């Protein structure tokens, strides 16, 4: 299953996959950020893969880059795949996947709020957990906690 997922993506977008690995038995694909939305559309609409469930979106601050992690599941077969993109820490932005999965809307707002990643094409990218006038993004490693 995970070989077909990887080969399907590689076949459709030869330059999209930068690296592939397996963590805990789940395929992890490191993607070039500009291919993310295309790959998501493919994984969602492909008849055999049909990753219909976006389980989770989150981001990690690696100090030299921000990594956004997408966790997808096919609910019928329980197949899973994890997509990862590395973003420039000074101006992290990537296309929103909320046009594919509605569930991404709130999750992307959370990543924007706490980690400062801008999701291009998001219909309503506002802070969600913190007040709108909050400064900074607390989950960044260099965030200074106010008194």
């Amino acid at each position: 299953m995970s070989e077909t997922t990887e080969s399907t993506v590689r076949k459709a977008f030869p330059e999209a996959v930068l690296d592939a690995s397996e963590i805990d038995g789940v395929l992890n694909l490191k993607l070039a950020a500009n291919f993310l939305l295309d790959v998501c559309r493919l994984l969602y609409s492909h008849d055999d893969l049909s990753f219909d469930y976006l389980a989770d979106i989150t981001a990690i601050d690696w100090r030299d880059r921000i990594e956004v992690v997408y966790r997808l599941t096919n609910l019928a077969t329980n197949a899973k795949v994890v997509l990862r993109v590395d973003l420039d820490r000074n101006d992290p932005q990537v296309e929103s996947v909320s046009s594919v999965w509605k569930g991404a809307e709130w999750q992307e707002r959370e990543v924007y709020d706490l980690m400062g990643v801008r999701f291009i094409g998001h219909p309503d990218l506002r802070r969600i957990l913190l007040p709108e006038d909050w400064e900074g993004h607390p989950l960044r490693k260099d965030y200074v906690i106010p008194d």
Partner: protein
Amino acid sequence: MSSRIRTELVEINMGPQHPSTHGVLRLEVSLDGEVIVDLKPDVGYLHRGIEKLAEMRTYVQFIPITDRLDYLSSMLQNAAYVGAIEKLGQIEVPERAEYIRVIMMELNRIASHLIFYGAMGLDLGATTPFLYGMREREDILDLFEMTCGARLTYNYFRPGGVAADLPAGFYQKAKSYIKKQRERLAEYDDLLTNNQIFIARMRGVGVISAEEAINYSMSGPTLRGSGVAYDVRKADPYSVYDKLDWDVATRPEGDSLARYLVRMQEIRESLRIVEQALDIMPPGKLQYKTPLRLKLPEGEVYHHIESSRGDLGVYLVSDGSDKPYRLKWRAPSFINLGALSRLAKGWKIADLVAILGSFDIVLGEVDR
């Protein structure tokens, strides 16, 4: 003069202090008369930044904080977090401890669903069910108290086991509770499930199809009420769930009544699980040798469980030290609430109370 009457939309705030928002949640509602045209939930009033707090604490120090997320099912919060640590650290758990955990998790699921049962009635104007639900929940809290000393924030799970073995008398007390709860469920149905007013307020209200519910990443009873048999206990079995005989409760209708009925059925299924676990639980030692200053190998893990509210995931990234480098809490209430606006549009404001009630959110988990 024109005979046409000019009408305009009315914006109202429901919450953050409102009995039907189940905590501090604010809903910005646009109304055309009584009909909801638009709805924007405003969350975060209870945000404590737990993911940041996790980075400043050792692995074990963070366990009590998990209790304060979905505070109606703290055992399950413990379980998700400790499960992630065990997976990454490859820590073994004695079989007896796994059975004790399952007993605690399912009792906690029942206790949470009992609050839902009562609060759902209360939302729609029925006071008695709340008193009934709280009465039986009390028996579960007594069982928790005799096991770990706490009634709400248990801090009972440990990497490699649980804090203490079951106390003397637990077995008999749990068995008599199960018997009593089964009898009382018939009363619950008489009071609320078969109440014509209740059914009229719930049936066909706030419908979402299976396909849409999946697209909104919904999970738990709110997803199973739309006919999707997705339950993490079956999909990715953990602990000893695969050794027990029980069924995933689903309803095809996708309305508020369906979400209610799924939870009522889940109480029955959880009773089955607890009963079996009590009987087949092996004797043995519970000792765990996990050091307090636990260090996990560099790497990452994603562990998810089925909590009372759905797919609860813990994503843990370790840099090899004694504190998490990054911890992400996938909160089912938060993600489910993201679909509320879609469900509420077109319904009257009185129906919003029924729809939100049927989501069974806990703000401690939504806001984290």
